[in-house]
């Protein structure tokens, strides 16, 4: 069964520091990978996605992620974070089987950006 592992449940960083949020997936078939962000008391917003092509994908708010098939990873990075990036980040894989499709999420990483 497909699964997503986010190794870090919480990541505290200082403002303007770089950050990497780790995500590993397991899947025996082609995958589509996503990062969603959830700001406090809000829904899920797509940051970026990997469908095919270039393994480095750029998203909103200066985030980027690199798909690494050999390491089955899709880590999220930002070179310089802001206070406003404080949120929970979810990595997800799209699983399509037969006629149905769903997202399988990781447990999330809570990013806290301190001044």
């Amino acid at each position, binding site marked *: 069964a497909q699964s997503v592992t986010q190794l870090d449940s919480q990541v505290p960083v200082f403002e303007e520091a770089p950050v990497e949020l780790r995500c590993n997936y397991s899947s025996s078939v082609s995958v589509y990978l*996503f990062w969603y962000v959830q700001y406090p008391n809000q829904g899920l917003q797509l940051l970026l996605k990997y469908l095919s092509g270039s393994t480095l994908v750029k998203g909103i708010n200066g985030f980027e992620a690199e798909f690494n098939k050999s390491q089955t990873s899709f880590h999220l990075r930002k070179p310089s974070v802001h206070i406003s990036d404080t949120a929970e980040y979810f990595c997800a894989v799209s699983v399509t*089987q037969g006629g*149905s499709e769903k997202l399988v999420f990781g447990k999330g990483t809570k990013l806290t950006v301190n001044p």
Partner: protein
Amino acid sequence: EPEVTQTPSHQVTQMGQEVILRCVPISNHLYFYWYRQILGQKVEFLVSFYNNEISEKSEIFDDQFSVERPDGSNFTLKIRSTKLEDSAMYFCASSRERGNTEAFFGQGTRLTVV
């Protein structure tokens, strides 16, 4: 910008009562989903819906749950007899295609069963 809207934003109900969570997906989307997030846990898939029928449901989606698209715009999740463990944030999502496109999520309905 089109968005998925969910009502109500908060719902408090007594154990054993029925609740209906409502969602208006984006108008040209064809695939609809419900997910839930128990406080402090990950987002879990409940059910997907396409062409007026359930495409897939998880083991969480037992006989107490049902979904319906009663008209051309609404997509509802009904919980027939709520239990304390049904307390969670419920997210509706829709997508235009399968797999290779973005699923747009609503703001969620926080359900509290007391």
